[in-house]
């Protein structure tokens, strides 16, 4: 290819003055795939999306979930999504922005959902993740606890768990911890 390099070098010298266009923003492969995921979303009415940075930044968005059954019915829970440029090789990073009394979500917003970590696969998509999150509210499980206390109560006394959840969602204390109203 050396001959080609020689030609190119000559062209480069010629073009030196001519160029100077505005730098182009590169669209990453992750963005392209996310574009597809998002334009194909098929969300239940109980889930809504927000794009705080406008229509051209899909890599950072929020999803609000409003369960219509189960312990958390009537509450609204906001999640932030951060998507990597090598998505879907890597799972989106998801945090719960609403403080919630939940066995699988801790008070800092970390979420224990297998498909976000150990079971993530590139064939999964944003739709699967949102359904997974929705599922956490209709069927919280005490076997994968992040909030140890909430998990213990759910296991031992579901009635008390239910009233704790209602109290937290209405805005109030469960034990020492205050939960702002989210319904």
């Amino acid at each position, binding site marked *: 290819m*050396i001959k*080609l390099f020689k030609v190119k070098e000559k062209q480069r010298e010629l073009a030196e003055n001519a160029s100077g266009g505005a*730098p182009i923003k*590169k*669209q990453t492969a992750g963005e392209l795939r996310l574009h597809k995921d998002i*334009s194909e979303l098929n969300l239940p009415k109980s889930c809504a999306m927000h794009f705080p940075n406008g229509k051209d930044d899909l890599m950072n968005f929020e999803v609000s979930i409003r369960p219509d059954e189960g312990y958390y019915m009537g509450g609204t829970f906001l999640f932030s999504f951060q998507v990597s440029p090598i998505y879907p090789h*890597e799972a989106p990073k998801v945090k719960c922005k609403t403080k919630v009394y939940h066995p699988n979500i801790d008070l800092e917003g970390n979420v224990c959902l297998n498909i976000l970590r150990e079971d993530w696969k590139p064939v999964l998509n944003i739709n699967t993740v949102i359904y997974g999150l929705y599922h956490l509210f209709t069927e919280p499980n005490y076997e994968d606890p992040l909030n140890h206390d909430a998990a213990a109560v759910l296991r031992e006394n579901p009635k008390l768990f239910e009233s704790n959840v209602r109290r937290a969602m209405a805005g109030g204390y469960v034990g020492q911890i205050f939960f702002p109203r989210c319904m």
Partner: protein
Amino acid sequence: MADTSPQPSRSRDLDKLLLRPGNLVGPRFEPGPETRDDLQAYARVLVVGAGGLGCELLKDLALTGFRNLDVIDMDRIEVTNLNRQFLFRLEDVGKPKAEVAAKRVMERISGVNIVPHFCRIEDKDISFYNDFNIIALGLDSIEARSYINGVACSFLEYDSYNNPREETIKPMVDGGTEGFKGHARVILPGITPCFECTIWLFPPQVKFPLCTLAETPRTAAHCIEYAHLIKWNEVHGGTAFDPDDPEHMKWVYNEALKRAELFGIPGVTYSLTQGVVKNIIPAIASTNAIISAACALETLKIATECSKTLSNYLSYNGTQGVHTKVTEFERDKDCLVCGPGVLIEVEPSVTLQKFIYLLEEHPKLWLSRASVSHQGKNLYLQAPTVLEEMTRSNLSQTLFNLMGKVTRDIVHVNGTATKNDQKISCMRKLLVVFKGTDGVADMDTAGGA
């Protein structure tokens, strides 16, 4: 053999490859001193990364006869680099890797000019990368590889028969090592698979379930990830963890130690903490040397055609004995990054709405409900409602205006295609050419309506 008044010097071994004909040479190889001189005068190579692989690559390329090298790296030298990043000395700690590496190689190898760039790869605009004939990658992250791959593939153009135009091919030589294992590969965009065609080659990162970290840690790594992912936020709330801040790393290490003590788990050390948090696998100097040597050789072969290039992926494993293997991976024909894209010619007066309708009728696409993006701008999205509403007003505008009045460019679309009566969702890359503007392609080859 013709007497070429051999220089007894540095190029003696190289001359044996470049001055003599051979059976394994490329079809256009012309033996003789001109090839050697052209290599020195015209070949411009960018080395991305000045770490373990980058140091080796710079030295190897300089000793191979390349004289115009650039190196880009955003990192500064750390004490822990010194065992293998052999261009650096203790007194260099804290200085930019790219600058010190360039200086050291130039001191030792006369006639070589190396320009260092102490910055992030994203800080350079695209034209910077286009000035190089070959890009050699000595990186340890998938993100960085994916970025450079996207840049290199963006120069690629195809002719009307969907063959890559040679002068637009930006060859890449990629090396990677993890402990005793490594790979070297040649990426000729449009000819051999690009990084994105074979991204599945990279194993997914090991991620522990958060609840395991919180409830039932069993290993030292569990304790470290607990401190890093859970405890840090609990205590520092707003402050984001910075893996390059030694104070942050110390804090995580101490918390991990406490947790390990609590659960009676041995093995938490500072270096393991760094390793787990930054996802680093211990680097072996010899592995870097072997992989870099293979990469430098391929760079020479691409430039001079003195031998056929690796086709196209060499894996090396020195864990038990030594095992190397070359695998010829295949391109993903529909790759969104290196694929040709479907040519679509339209009038500049066509609105986005009409364009989306044309995709439905296009015999190579039959794509309905298309969403369209161009250079990072979302022109139209079918869903969700909030984005559909934000982009709806674009539908009545002309595509030509929405694309900034360029004469031709790549756009990406996705939607539902109908194949054998089955509806499948798909993403496609399109090359849009506006008729009657300067950049019009061959009219006869237009693929549709």
